[in-house]
Protein backbone atom coordinates (compact mmCIF):
# COMPACT_ATOMS: atom_id res chain seq x y z
CA UNK A 1 0.00 0.00 0.00
CA UNK A 2 2.71 2.39 1.00
CA UNK A 3 4.54 1.59 -2.23
CA UNK A 4 1.57 2.77 -4.25
CA UNK A 5 1.43 5.94 -2.23
CA UNK A 6 5.03 6.68 -3.07
CA UNK A 7 4.39 6.15 -6.77
CA UNK A 8 1.38 8.39 -6.91
CA UNK A 9 3.33 11.05 -5.08
CA UNK A 10 6.09 10.68 -7.65
CA UNK A 11 3.65 11.03 -10.52
CA UNK A 12 2.16 14.09 -8.92
CA UNK A 13 5.54 15.71 -8.77
CA UNK A 14 7.07 14.60 -12.03
CA UNK A 15 3.98 14.99 -14.14
CA UNK A 16 4.14 18.70 -13.60
CA UNK A 17 6.61 19.45 -16.43
CA UNK A 18 4.27 18.10 -19.09
CA UNK A 19 1.48 20.44 -18.14
CA UNK A 20 4.05 23.16 -17.59
CA UNK A 21 5.56 22.87 -21.05
CA UNK A 22 2.12 22.70 -22.62
CA UNK A 23 1.24 25.89 -20.88
CA UNK A 24 4.42 27.53 -22.13
CA UNK A 25 3.70 26.37 -25.68
CA UNK A 26 0.34 27.98 -25.40
CA UNK A 27 1.86 31.17 -24.06
CA UNK A 28 4.47 31.24 -26.83
CA UNK A 29 1.69 30.98 -29.38
CA UNK A 30 -0.26 33.67 -27.62
CA UNK A 31 2.54 36.11 -28.51
CA UNK A 32 2.22 35.41 -32.21
CA UNK A 33 -0.81 37.50 -33.19
CA UNK A 34 -0.22 41.13 -32.22
CA UNK A 35 -3.17 42.48 -30.23
CA UNK A 36 -5.34 44.74 -32.31
CA UNK A 37 -6.39 48.27 -31.48
CA UNK A 38 -5.32 51.75 -32.40
CA UNK A 39 -4.14 54.81 -30.56
CA UNK A 40 -3.03 54.85 -26.94
CA UNK A 41 -5.23 51.94 -25.85
CA UNK A 42 -3.92 49.70 -28.60
CA UNK A 43 -0.36 50.65 -27.70
CA UNK A 44 -0.92 49.97 -24.01
CA UNK A 45 -2.52 46.63 -24.80
CA UNK A 46 0.47 45.70 -26.94
CA UNK A 47 2.86 46.67 -24.15
CA UNK A 48 0.80 44.71 -21.64
CA UNK A 49 1.03 41.49 -23.65
CA UNK A 50 4.83 41.67 -23.97
CA UNK A 51 6.79 38.95 -22.11
CA UNK A 52 7.30 39.91 -18.47
CA UNK A 53 11.08 39.96 -19.01
CA UNK A 54 10.74 42.77 -21.54
CA UNK A 55 8.48 44.75 -19.21
CA UNK A 56 10.57 44.30 -16.05
CA UNK A 57 14.00 44.47 -17.71
CA UNK A 58 12.90 47.32 -19.94
CA UNK A 59 11.67 49.28 -16.91
CA UNK A 60 14.97 48.84 -15.05
CA UNK A 61 17.04 49.78 -18.11
CA UNK A 62 14.74 52.72 -18.87
CA UNK A 63 15.02 53.92 -15.29
CA UNK A 64 18.82 53.93 -15.34
CA UNK A 65 18.96 55.61 -18.75
CA UNK A 66 16.62 58.35 -17.53
CA UNK A 67 18.70 58.81 -14.38
CA UNK A 68 21.85 59.17 -16.49
CA UNK A 69 20.22 61.66 -18.88
CA UNK A 70 18.64 63.81 -16.16
CA UNK A 71 21.50 63.54 -13.65
CA UNK A 72 21.93 67.33 -13.24
CA UNK A 73 18.22 67.71 -12.41
CA UNK A 74 17.91 64.63 -10.19
CA UNK A 75 21.09 64.80 -8.12
CA UNK A 76 20.57 66.80 -4.91
CA UNK A 77 24.29 67.72 -4.74
CA UNK A 78 27.17 68.10 -7.18
CA UNK A 79 29.33 65.00 -7.64
CA UNK A 80 32.37 66.52 -5.91
CA UNK A 81 30.52 68.61 -3.33
CA UNK A 82 31.08 67.68 0.31
CA UNK A 83 32.31 68.72 3.75
CA UNK A 84 34.80 66.56 5.62
CA UNK A 85 32.73 67.22 8.75
CA UNK A 86 29.86 65.22 7.22
CA UNK A 87 32.00 62.19 6.36
CA UNK A 88 30.72 58.61 6.56
CA UNK A 89 27.11 59.35 7.47
CA UNK A 90 25.08 56.15 7.45
CA UNK A 91 22.36 55.19 4.98
CA UNK A 92 19.13 57.08 5.75
CA UNK A 93 20.68 60.20 7.29
CA UNK A 94 18.52 63.32 6.95
CA UNK A 95 19.69 65.31 3.89
CA UNK A 96 21.78 62.37 2.66
CA UNK A 97 19.37 59.56 1.77
CA UNK A 98 22.11 57.03 0.99
CA UNK A 99 24.71 58.50 3.35
CA UNK A 100 28.06 60.12 2.56
CA UNK A 101 31.48 58.79 1.62
CA UNK A 102 34.87 59.21 3.31
CA UNK A 103 35.11 62.80 2.08
CA UNK A 104 31.58 63.79 3.04
CA UNK A 105 30.21 63.68 -0.49
CA UNK A 106 26.55 62.68 -0.93
CA UNK A 107 26.46 59.06 -2.08
CA UNK A 108 23.09 59.31 -3.87
CA UNK A 109 24.31 62.24 -5.95
CA UNK A 110 27.56 60.48 -6.82
CA UNK A 111 25.67 57.35 -7.90
CA UNK A 112 23.30 59.42 -10.07
CA UNK A 113 26.22 61.24 -11.73
CA UNK A 114 28.06 57.94 -11.95
CA UNK A 115 25.29 56.43 -14.07
CA UNK A 116 26.65 58.39 -17.05
CA UNK A 117 30.17 56.90 -17.31
CA UNK A 118 29.04 53.52 -16.00
CA UNK A 119 26.26 53.03 -18.56
CA UNK A 120 28.35 54.51 -21.38
CA UNK A 121 31.21 52.14 -20.62
CA UNK A 122 28.74 49.24 -20.63
CA UNK A 123 26.73 50.05 -23.76
CA UNK A 124 29.25 51.56 -26.20
CA UNK A 125 31.76 48.67 -26.17
CA UNK A 126 28.96 46.24 -27.05
CA UNK A 127 27.85 48.47 -29.94
CA UNK A 128 31.39 48.83 -31.29
CA UNK A 129 32.15 45.13 -30.81
CA UNK A 130 28.82 44.23 -32.47
CA UNK A 131 29.75 46.28 -35.56
CA UNK A 132 33.21 44.74 -35.89
CA UNK A 133 32.21 41.26 -34.73
CA UNK A 134 29.20 41.08 -37.08
CA UNK A 135 31.32 42.14 -40.05
CA UNK A 136 33.96 39.54 -39.20
CA UNK A 137 31.32 36.86 -38.64
CA UNK A 138 29.61 37.70 -41.95
CA UNK A 139 32.86 37.63 -43.91
CA UNK A 140 33.90 34.38 -42.22
CA UNK A 141 30.51 32.74 -42.73
CA UNK A 142 29.93 33.83 -46.32
CA UNK A 143 33.49 34.10 -47.58
CA UNK A 144 35.88 31.64 -49.11
CA UNK A 145 36.97 28.62 -47.09
CA UNK A 146 40.43 30.11 -46.62
CA UNK A 147 39.06 33.44 -45.40
CA UNK A 148 36.84 31.54 -43.00
CA UNK A 149 39.79 29.56 -41.70
CA UNK A 150 42.00 32.61 -41.29
CA UNK A 151 39.39 34.62 -39.37
CA UNK A 152 38.22 31.78 -37.16
CA UNK A 153 41.73 30.57 -36.25
CA UNK A 154 42.74 34.13 -35.37
CA UNK A 155 39.66 34.41 -33.18
CA UNK A 156 40.64 31.07 -31.57
CA UNK A 157 43.89 32.68 -30.43
CA UNK A 158 42.08 35.74 -29.05
CA UNK A 159 39.57 33.41 -27.44
CA UNK A 160 42.32 31.47 -25.69
CA UNK A 161 43.06 34.59 -23.64
CA UNK A 162 41.18 34.99 -20.40
CA UNK A 163 38.69 37.81 -21.14
CA UNK A 164 38.96 39.60 -17.79
CA UNK A 165 42.75 39.56 -17.77
CA UNK A 166 42.84 40.68 -21.39
CA UNK A 167 40.64 43.66 -20.52
CA UNK A 168 42.82 44.43 -17.49
CA UNK A 169 46.05 44.28 -19.52
CA UNK A 170 44.70 46.50 -22.30
CA UNK A 171 43.24 48.99 -19.83
CA UNK A 172 46.55 49.03 -17.93
CA UNK A 173 48.46 49.60 -21.16
CA UNK A 174 46.21 52.45 -22.26
CA UNK A 175 45.99 54.23 -18.90
CA UNK A 176 42.97 55.46 -16.93
CA UNK A 177 39.87 57.04 -18.50
CA UNK A 178 36.40 56.07 -19.74
CA UNK A 179 37.55 56.07 -23.38
CA UNK A 180 40.24 53.51 -22.61
CA UNK A 181 37.80 51.29 -20.75
CA UNK A 182 35.52 51.41 -23.80
CA UNK A 183 38.41 50.51 -26.12
CA UNK A 184 39.58 47.65 -23.88
CA UNK A 185 36.11 46.13 -23.55
CA UNK A 186 35.34 46.56 -27.27
CA UNK A 187 38.43 44.51 -28.14
CA UNK A 188 37.53 41.80 -25.63
CA UNK A 189 33.92 41.47 -26.85
CA UNK A 190 34.66 41.20 -30.61
CA UNK A 191 35.63 37.51 -30.55
CA UNK A 192 32.49 36.15 -28.79
CA UNK A 193 30.15 38.22 -30.99
CA UNK A 194 31.95 37.18 -34.18
CA UNK A 195 31.64 33.53 -33.14
CA UNK A 196 27.91 33.78 -32.50
CA UNK A 197 27.35 35.55 -35.83
CA UNK A 198 29.46 32.99 -37.72
CA UNK A 199 27.44 30.09 -36.25
CA UNK A 200 24.18 31.77 -37.25
CA UNK A 201 25.39 32.70 -40.75
CA UNK A 202 26.44 29.11 -41.44
CA UNK A 203 22.94 27.95 -40.52
CA UNK A 204 21.35 30.50 -42.84
CA UNK A 205 23.86 29.94 -45.67
CA UNK A 206 22.30 26.77 -47.02
CA UNK A 207 18.72 28.08 -47.00
CA UNK A 208 16.71 28.04 -50.25
CA UNK A 209 16.14 31.79 -50.21
CA UNK A 210 19.91 32.28 -50.37
CA UNK A 211 20.04 30.24 -53.58
CA UNK A 212 17.11 32.25 -54.87
CA UNK A 213 18.90 35.53 -54.11
CA UNK A 214 22.06 34.33 -55.80
CA UNK A 215 20.13 33.03 -58.80
CA UNK A 216 18.42 36.37 -59.25
CA UNK A 217 21.84 37.98 -59.45
CA UNK A 218 22.22 39.58 -56.02
CA UNK A 219 25.84 40.45 -55.14
CA UNK A 220 27.64 39.46 -51.97
CA UNK A 221 26.96 42.74 -50.15
CA UNK A 222 23.27 42.76 -51.04
CA UNK A 223 22.82 39.12 -50.03
CA UNK A 224 24.59 39.75 -46.74
CA UNK A 225 22.63 42.87 -45.85
CA UNK A 226 19.20 41.96 -47.28
CA UNK A 227 19.06 38.19 -46.67
CA UNK A 228 21.51 37.23 -43.95
CA UNK A 229 21.47 40.13 -41.52
CA UNK A 230 17.68 40.21 -41.05
CA UNK A 231 17.77 36.50 -40.28
CA UNK A 232 20.52 36.66 -37.68
CA UNK A 233 19.37 39.96 -36.17
CA UNK A 234 17.08 38.52 -33.45
CA UNK A 235 19.89 36.30 -32.09
CA UNK A 236 22.34 39.18 -32.28
CA UNK A 237 20.03 41.61 -30.45
CA UNK A 238 19.31 39.12 -27.66
CA UNK A 239 22.98 38.22 -27.26
CA UNK A 240 24.14 41.84 -27.26
CA UNK A 241 21.52 42.92 -24.71
CA UNK A 242 22.81 40.31 -22.27
CA UNK A 243 26.40 41.28 -23.12
CA UNK A 244 25.67 44.85 -22.02
CA UNK A 245 24.85 43.46 -18.57
CA UNK A 246 28.23 41.76 -18.54
CA UNK A 247 30.05 44.81 -19.94
CA UNK A 248 28.62 47.01 -17.15
CA UNK A 249 30.03 44.55 -14.60
CA UNK A 250 33.43 44.48 -16.34
CA UNK A 251 33.58 48.26 -16.80
CA UNK A 252 32.78 48.90 -13.15
CA UNK A 253 35.24 46.14 -12.28
CA UNK A 254 38.07 47.90 -14.13
CA UNK A 255 37.35 51.11 -12.23
CA UNK A 256 37.11 49.05 -9.05
CA UNK A 257 40.68 47.88 -9.69
CA UNK A 258 41.73 51.49 -10.29
CA UNK A 259 42.16 51.03 -14.06
CA UNK A 260 39.02 52.78 -15.31
CA UNK A 261 37.65 56.14 -14.29
CA UNK A 262 40.15 58.11 -12.19
CA UNK A 263 39.18 58.70 -8.53
CA UNK A 264 37.59 62.10 -7.98
CA UNK A 265 35.16 61.42 -10.84
CA UNK A 266 32.03 59.49 -9.91
CA UNK A 267 31.71 56.02 -11.43
CA UNK A 268 30.01 53.06 -9.78
CA UNK A 269 33.07 50.82 -9.64
CA UNK A 270 35.32 53.67 -8.47
CA UNK A 271 32.78 54.63 -5.79
CA UNK A 272 32.66 51.00 -4.62
CA UNK A 273 36.45 50.82 -4.41
CA UNK A 274 36.50 54.10 -2.49
CA UNK A 275 33.93 52.93 0.08
CA UNK A 276 35.69 49.59 0.42
CA UNK A 277 38.39 51.39 2.43
CA UNK A 278 35.73 52.16 5.06
CA UNK A 279 34.21 48.68 5.07
CA UNK A 280 34.84 48.16 8.77
CA UNK A 281 33.56 51.63 9.81
CA UNK A 282 30.38 51.82 7.74
CA UNK A 283 29.81 48.42 6.12
CA UNK A 284 26.36 49.25 4.74
CA UNK A 285 27.69 52.14 2.61
CA UNK A 286 29.78 49.92 0.32
CA UNK A 287 26.77 47.69 -0.32
CA UNK A 288 24.88 50.56 -2.00
CA UNK A 289 27.06 50.90 -5.13
CA UNK A 290 27.51 47.09 -5.12
CA UNK A 291 23.72 46.73 -5.33
CA UNK A 292 23.38 49.44 -8.00
CA UNK A 293 25.85 47.69 -10.33
CA UNK A 294 24.06 44.40 -9.70
CA UNK A 295 20.58 45.81 -10.44
CA UNK A 296 21.73 47.52 -13.64
CA UNK A 297 23.32 44.29 -14.82
CA UNK A 298 20.23 42.24 -13.89
CA UNK A 299 18.08 44.76 -15.80
CA UNK A 300 19.91 44.15 -19.08
CA UNK A 301 19.96 40.38 -18.55
CA UNK A 302 16.24 40.21 -17.81
CA UNK A 303 15.56 42.40 -20.85
CA UNK A 304 17.69 40.03 -22.93
CA UNK A 305 15.68 37.05 -21.67
CA UNK A 306 12.41 38.81 -22.43
CA UNK A 307 13.58 39.66 -25.94
CA UNK A 308 14.65 36.05 -26.39
CA UNK A 309 11.10 34.97 -25.61
CA UNK A 310 9.56 37.73 -27.75
CA UNK A 311 11.76 37.09 -30.78
CA UNK A 312 11.71 33.31 -30.27
CA UNK A 313 15.48 32.86 -30.11
CA UNK A 314 16.86 29.57 -28.85
CA UNK A 315 19.07 29.60 -25.77
CA UNK A 316 22.78 29.22 -26.50
CA UNK A 317 25.05 27.18 -24.27
Amino acid at each position, binding site marked *: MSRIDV*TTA*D*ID*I*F*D*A*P*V*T*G*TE*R*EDFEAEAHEPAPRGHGLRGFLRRVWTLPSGVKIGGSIVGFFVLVAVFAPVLAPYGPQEGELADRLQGVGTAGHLLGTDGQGRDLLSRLIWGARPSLTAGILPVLFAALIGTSLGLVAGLGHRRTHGLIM*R*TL*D*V*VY*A*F*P*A*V*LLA*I*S*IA*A*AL*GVGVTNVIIALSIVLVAPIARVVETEVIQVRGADFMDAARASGAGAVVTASKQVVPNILPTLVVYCTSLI*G*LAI*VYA*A*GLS*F*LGLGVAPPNPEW*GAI*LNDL*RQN*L*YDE*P*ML*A*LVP*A*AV*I*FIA*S*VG*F*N*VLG*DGLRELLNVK*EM*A
Partner: protein
Amino acid sequence: MLKFFLRRLLAIIPIVFGVIVVVFLTLKLIPGDPASALLGASATPSQRKQLIADLGLNRSIFVQFWNWFLAVLQGDLGHSILRQQPVGPMVMDAFWNTMILAVGASVIAIVGGLVIGGASALWPRTLFGRACNWIATGSVSTPQYSIGLGLIVIFAVNWEILPASGMYSSTGPQNFWDLLQHLILPAIAAGLAPMGIVARVFRSSLDDVMRADFVESYRARGAPSRKVLTHAAHNTMPALLTISGLQFGYLISGVVFVETIFSWPGLGLLIYNSIAQRDYPVIEGGVLILAVALVLINVLVDTAHAAIDPRVRPA
Protein backbone atom coordinates in the same frame (compact mmCIF):
# COMPACT_ATOMS: atom_id res chain seq x y z
CA MET B 1 38.93 7.90 -28.33
CA LEU B 2 42.68 8.21 -27.72
CA LYS B 3 43.11 9.13 -31.37
CA PHE B 4 40.45 11.80 -31.08
CA PHE B 5 42.16 13.19 -27.99
CA LEU B 6 45.61 13.21 -29.60
CA ARG B 7 44.29 14.85 -32.75
CA ARG B 8 42.68 17.62 -30.68
CA LEU B 9 45.90 17.97 -28.71
CA LEU B 10 47.89 18.49 -31.91
CA ALA B 11 45.38 21.08 -33.09
CA ILE B 12 46.15 23.34 -30.12
CA ILE B 13 49.83 23.74 -31.03
CA PRO B 14 49.21 26.61 -33.50
CA ILE B 15 46.86 28.24 -30.98
CA VAL B 16 49.48 28.07 -28.24
CA PHE B 17 52.10 29.47 -30.60
CA GLY B 18 49.73 32.33 -31.47
CA VAL B 19 49.20 32.95 -27.77
CA ILE B 20 52.97 33.08 -27.15
CA VAL B 21 53.43 35.63 -29.95
CA VAL B 22 50.50 37.79 -28.84
CA VAL B 23 51.54 37.76 -25.17
CA PHE B 24 55.03 38.85 -26.11
CA LEU B 25 53.91 41.60 -28.49
CA THR B 26 51.18 42.99 -26.20
CA LEU B 27 53.64 43.43 -23.38
CA LYS B 28 56.10 45.21 -25.64
CA LEU B 29 53.35 47.69 -26.44
CA ILE B 30 52.72 48.59 -22.79
CA PRO B 31 54.25 52.03 -22.24
CA GLY B 32 56.77 52.53 -19.47
CA ASP B 33 59.80 50.26 -19.12
CA PRO B 34 60.69 47.83 -16.35
CA ALA B 35 64.10 49.38 -15.81
CA SER B 36 62.59 52.65 -14.58
CA ALA B 37 60.08 50.73 -12.46
CA LEU B 38 62.93 48.76 -10.89
CA LEU B 39 65.32 51.59 -10.18
CA GLY B 40 62.87 54.26 -9.12
CA ALA B 41 62.98 57.96 -9.93
CA SER B 42 66.46 58.62 -8.50
CA ALA B 43 68.36 56.39 -10.94
CA THR B 44 71.15 57.84 -13.07
CA PRO B 45 71.04 57.29 -16.86
CA SER B 46 74.10 55.05 -16.73
CA GLN B 47 72.51 52.83 -14.10
CA ARG B 48 69.48 52.50 -16.34
CA LYS B 49 71.57 51.66 -19.35
CA GLN B 50 73.45 49.00 -17.43
CA LEU B 51 70.23 47.40 -16.19
CA ILE B 52 68.61 47.42 -19.62
CA ALA B 53 71.66 45.65 -21.00
CA ASP B 54 71.55 43.13 -18.14
CA LEU B 55 67.91 42.36 -18.81
CA GLY B 56 68.52 42.01 -22.53
CA LEU B 57 66.01 44.76 -23.28
CA ASN B 58 68.38 46.58 -25.65
CA ARG B 59 68.48 43.82 -28.25
CA SER B 60 66.22 43.64 -31.29
CA ILE B 61 62.66 42.57 -30.67
CA PHE B 62 63.15 39.39 -32.74
CA VAL B 63 66.16 38.34 -30.67
CA GLN B 64 64.23 39.00 -27.48
CA PHE B 65 61.29 36.96 -28.75
CA TRP B 66 63.46 34.10 -29.98
CA ASN B 67 65.33 33.86 -26.67
CA TRP B 68 62.09 33.92 -24.74
CA PHE B 69 60.45 31.38 -27.03
CA LEU B 70 63.37 28.91 -26.74
CA ALA B 71 63.37 29.28 -22.97
CA VAL B 72 59.60 28.71 -22.77
CA LEU B 73 59.91 25.51 -24.79
CA GLN B 74 62.42 24.29 -22.20
CA GLY B 75 60.01 25.16 -19.40
CA ASP B 76 62.00 28.20 -18.27
CA LEU B 77 59.74 31.23 -17.84
CA GLY B 78 62.55 33.56 -16.80
CA HIS B 79 63.15 35.58 -13.64
CA SER B 80 60.85 38.06 -11.98
CA ILE B 81 62.39 41.49 -12.41
CA LEU B 82 61.17 42.79 -9.07
CA ARG B 83 61.22 39.71 -6.88
CA GLN B 84 64.46 38.15 -8.19
CA GLN B 85 62.85 34.71 -8.22
CA PRO B 86 62.32 32.27 -11.06
CA VAL B 87 58.91 32.90 -12.59
CA GLY B 88 58.01 29.23 -13.14
CA PRO B 89 57.57 28.07 -9.52
CA MET B 90 56.05 31.43 -8.52
CA VAL B 91 53.41 31.23 -11.25
CA MET B 92 52.69 27.55 -10.63
CA ASP B 93 52.15 28.12 -6.88
CA ALA B 94 49.70 30.88 -7.63
CA PHE B 95 48.08 28.73 -10.32
CA TRP B 96 47.37 25.91 -7.82
CA ASN B 97 45.87 28.40 -5.37
CA THR B 98 43.59 29.61 -8.14
CA MET B 99 42.73 26.00 -8.98
CA ILE B 100 41.66 25.41 -5.34
CA LEU B 101 39.41 28.44 -5.52
CA ALA B 102 38.06 27.43 -8.95
CA VAL B 103 37.30 23.88 -7.79
CA GLY B 104 35.48 25.21 -4.71
CA ALA B 105 33.51 27.63 -6.86
CA SER B 106 32.73 24.86 -9.38
CA VAL B 107 31.31 22.64 -6.66
CA ILE B 108 28.95 25.46 -5.70
CA ALA B 109 28.17 26.24 -9.34
CA ILE B 110 27.39 22.66 -10.35
CA VAL B 111 25.52 21.50 -7.24
CA GLY B 112 23.56 24.74 -6.97
CA GLY B 113 23.00 24.88 -10.72
CA LEU B 114 21.59 21.32 -10.82
CA VAL B 115 19.22 21.96 -7.92
CA ILE B 116 18.02 25.36 -9.16
CA GLY B 117 17.87 24.42 -12.84
CA GLY B 118 16.18 21.10 -12.11
CA ALA B 119 13.57 22.68 -9.86
CA SER B 120 12.70 25.40 -12.36
CA ALA B 121 12.42 22.84 -15.19
CA LEU B 122 10.37 20.26 -13.28
CA TRP B 123 8.01 22.53 -11.35
CA PRO B 124 7.77 25.70 -13.48
CA ARG B 125 4.38 26.64 -12.07
CA THR B 126 5.09 26.32 -8.37
CA LEU B 127 6.36 29.17 -6.24
CA PHE B 128 9.57 27.24 -5.59
CA GLY B 129 10.17 26.66 -9.30
CA ARG B 130 9.60 30.28 -10.12
CA ALA B 131 11.82 31.44 -7.27
CA CYS B 132 14.56 29.17 -8.60
CA ASN B 133 14.10 30.67 -12.05
CA TRP B 134 14.55 34.17 -10.64
CA ILE B 135 17.57 33.11 -8.60
CA ALA B 136 19.15 31.72 -11.78
CA THR B 137 18.50 34.95 -13.69
CA GLY B 138 19.74 37.09 -10.80
CA SER B 139 22.90 35.15 -10.11
CA VAL B 140 24.02 35.19 -13.77
CA SER B 141 24.35 38.96 -13.49
CA THR B 142 26.03 39.02 -10.07
CA PRO B 143 29.28 40.96 -10.16
CA GLN B 144 31.93 39.02 -8.20
CA TYR B 145 32.99 42.12 -6.31
CA SER B 146 29.44 43.08 -5.31
CA ILE B 147 28.62 39.69 -3.86
CA GLY B 148 32.13 39.38 -2.40
CA LEU B 149 31.85 42.64 -0.46
CA GLY B 150 28.30 41.71 0.60
CA LEU B 151 29.51 38.38 1.99
CA ILE B 152 32.39 40.07 3.83
CA VAL B 153 30.01 42.58 5.40
CA ILE B 154 27.60 39.87 6.57
CA PHE B 155 29.88 36.99 7.59
CA ALA B 156 33.17 38.67 8.46
CA VAL B 157 32.23 42.15 9.73
CA ASN B 158 28.80 41.72 11.29
CA TRP B 159 28.78 38.09 12.44
CA GLU B 160 32.55 37.50 12.54
CA ILE B 161 32.14 33.78 11.81
CA LEU B 162 34.25 33.43 8.65
CA PRO B 163 37.62 34.95 7.69
CA ALA B 164 37.60 37.71 5.07
CA SER B 165 41.07 37.34 3.57
CA GLY B 166 43.91 35.00 2.74
CA MET B 167 44.09 31.22 2.41
CA TYR B 168 45.25 30.31 5.91
CA SER B 169 45.14 32.08 9.26
CA SER B 170 48.45 33.55 10.42
CA THR B 171 47.94 32.04 13.86
CA GLY B 172 46.62 28.58 14.67
CA PRO B 173 46.85 25.37 12.70
CA GLN B 174 47.17 25.72 8.94
CA ASN B 175 45.32 22.56 8.06
CA PHE B 176 42.61 21.50 5.63
CA TRP B 177 39.83 22.72 7.92
CA ASP B 178 41.46 26.14 8.11
CA LEU B 179 41.71 26.28 4.31
CA LEU B 180 38.07 25.26 3.96
CA GLN B 181 36.94 28.09 6.23
CA HIS B 182 38.92 30.60 4.18
CA LEU B 183 37.59 29.09 0.95
CA ILE B 184 33.85 29.34 1.65
CA LEU B 185 33.24 33.07 1.03
CA PRO B 186 35.48 33.49 -2.04
CA ALA B 187 34.10 30.27 -3.54
CA ILE B 188 30.53 31.53 -3.19
CA ALA B 189 31.45 34.94 -4.63
CA ALA B 190 33.16 33.32 -7.62
CA GLY B 191 30.69 30.47 -8.06
CA LEU B 192 27.41 32.37 -8.10
CA ALA B 193 27.49 33.63 -11.70
CA PRO B 194 28.54 30.22 -13.13
CA MET B 195 25.85 28.64 -10.95
CA GLY B 196 23.21 30.74 -12.70
CA ILE B 197 24.57 29.77 -16.12
CA VAL B 198 24.71 26.05 -15.26
CA ALA B 199 21.16 26.30 -13.89
CA ARG B 200 19.87 27.89 -17.08
CA VAL B 201 21.56 25.42 -19.40
CA PHE B 202 20.37 22.48 -17.28
CA ARG B 203 16.84 23.86 -17.19
CA SER B 204 16.56 24.40 -20.94
CA SER B 205 18.14 21.05 -21.86
CA LEU B 206 16.02 19.15 -19.31
CA ASP B 207 13.00 20.98 -20.67
CA ASP B 208 13.89 19.94 -24.23
CA VAL B 209 14.51 16.32 -23.25
CA MET B 210 11.27 16.06 -21.27
CA ARG B 211 9.40 16.97 -24.47
CA ALA B 212 11.24 14.35 -26.53
CA ASP B 213 9.34 11.45 -28.07
CA PHE B 214 11.21 8.79 -26.12
CA VAL B 215 10.10 10.33 -22.83
CA GLU B 216 6.52 10.26 -24.08
CA SER B 217 6.90 6.61 -25.05
CA TYR B 218 8.35 5.73 -21.63
CA ARG B 219 5.41 7.37 -19.97
CA ALA B 220 2.96 5.63 -22.28
CA ARG B 221 4.47 2.29 -21.35
CA GLY B 222 3.88 3.13 -17.70
CA ALA B 223 7.48 3.63 -16.57
CA PRO B 224 7.64 5.18 -13.11
CA SER B 225 8.38 8.91 -13.15
CA ARG B 226 11.64 8.44 -11.34
CA LYS B 227 12.89 6.14 -14.06
CA VAL B 228 11.76 8.54 -16.78
CA LEU B 229 13.64 11.29 -15.04
CA THR B 230 16.81 9.18 -14.81
CA HIS B 231 16.73 8.61 -18.57
CA ALA B 232 15.96 12.25 -19.25
CA ALA B 233 18.78 13.41 -16.97
CA HIS B 234 21.18 11.09 -18.78
CA ASN B 235 20.40 12.92 -22.00
CA THR B 236 21.25 16.31 -20.52
CA MET B 237 24.79 15.15 -19.72
CA PRO B 238 26.50 16.45 -22.90
CA ALA B 239 25.11 19.96 -22.47
CA LEU B 240 25.91 19.91 -18.77
CA LEU B 241 29.45 18.71 -19.34
CA THR B 242 30.17 21.33 -21.98
CA ILE B 243 28.87 24.20 -19.90
CA SER B 244 30.65 23.01 -16.74
CA GLY B 245 33.93 22.82 -18.62
CA LEU B 246 33.45 26.26 -20.12
CA GLN B 247 32.59 27.71 -16.73
CA PHE B 248 35.59 26.06 -15.09
CA GLY B 249 37.78 27.65 -17.73
CA TYR B 250 36.09 30.97 -17.08
CA LEU B 251 36.68 30.53 -13.35
CA ILE B 252 40.42 29.85 -13.44
CA SER B 253 40.93 32.98 -15.51
CA GLY B 254 38.14 35.21 -14.23
CA VAL B 255 38.49 35.18 -10.46
CA VAL B 256 40.81 38.19 -10.33
CA PHE B 257 38.15 40.34 -8.62
CA VAL B 258 37.50 37.71 -5.95
CA GLU B 259 41.23 37.23 -5.43
CA THR B 260 41.69 40.98 -5.02
CA ILE B 261 38.86 41.39 -2.52
CA PHE B 262 39.70 38.32 -0.45
CA SER B 263 43.51 38.65 -0.84
CA TRP B 264 43.55 35.11 -2.21
CA PRO B 265 47.15 34.50 -3.40
CA GLY B 266 46.10 33.23 -6.83
CA LEU B 267 47.31 33.77 -10.37
CA GLY B 268 44.81 36.54 -11.17
CA LEU B 269 46.03 38.63 -8.27
CA LEU B 270 49.67 37.91 -9.12
CA ILE B 271 49.19 39.00 -12.75
CA TYR B 272 47.22 42.07 -11.73
CA ASN B 273 49.93 43.15 -9.27
CA SER B 274 52.63 42.43 -11.84
CA ILE B 275 50.86 44.63 -14.39
CA ALA B 276 50.94 47.50 -11.92
CA GLN B 277 54.66 46.84 -11.22
CA ARG B 278 55.54 46.26 -14.89
CA ASP B 279 57.09 42.92 -14.01
CA TYR B 280 57.00 41.62 -17.60
CA PRO B 281 58.28 38.05 -17.11
CA VAL B 282 55.66 37.32 -14.45
CA ILE B 283 52.81 38.68 -16.62
CA GLU B 284 54.08 36.73 -19.62
CA GLY B 285 54.45 33.50 -17.67
CA GLY B 286 51.14 33.89 -15.85
CA VAL B 287 49.05 34.68 -18.93
CA LEU B 288 50.77 31.89 -20.84
CA ILE B 289 49.98 29.30 -18.15
CA LEU B 290 46.36 30.47 -18.02
CA ALA B 291 45.90 30.40 -21.78
CA VAL B 292 47.43 26.93 -22.06
CA ALA B 293 45.25 25.71 -19.18
CA LEU B 294 42.14 27.15 -20.89
CA VAL B 295 42.94 25.47 -24.21
CA LEU B 296 43.73 22.16 -22.48
CA ILE B 297 40.45 22.24 -20.56
CA ASN B 298 38.60 22.75 -23.85
CA VAL B 299 40.32 19.70 -25.33
CA LEU B 300 39.47 17.60 -22.27
CA VAL B 301 35.84 18.73 -22.40
CA ASP B 302 35.59 17.92 -26.10
CA THR B 303 37.09 14.48 -25.52
CA ALA B 304 34.76 13.74 -22.61
CA HIS B 305 31.87 14.99 -24.73
CA ALA B 306 32.81 12.60 -27.52
CA ALA B 307 33.15 9.79 -24.98
CA ILE B 308 29.59 10.13 -23.65
CA ASP B 309 27.89 11.29 -26.85
CA PRO B 310 28.59 9.14 -29.93
CA ARG B 311 27.00 11.74 -32.22
CA VAL B 312 29.95 14.14 -31.99
CA ARG B 313 32.56 11.43 -32.57
CA PRO B 314 34.37 11.66 -35.91
CA ALA B 315 33.41 8.84 -38.24
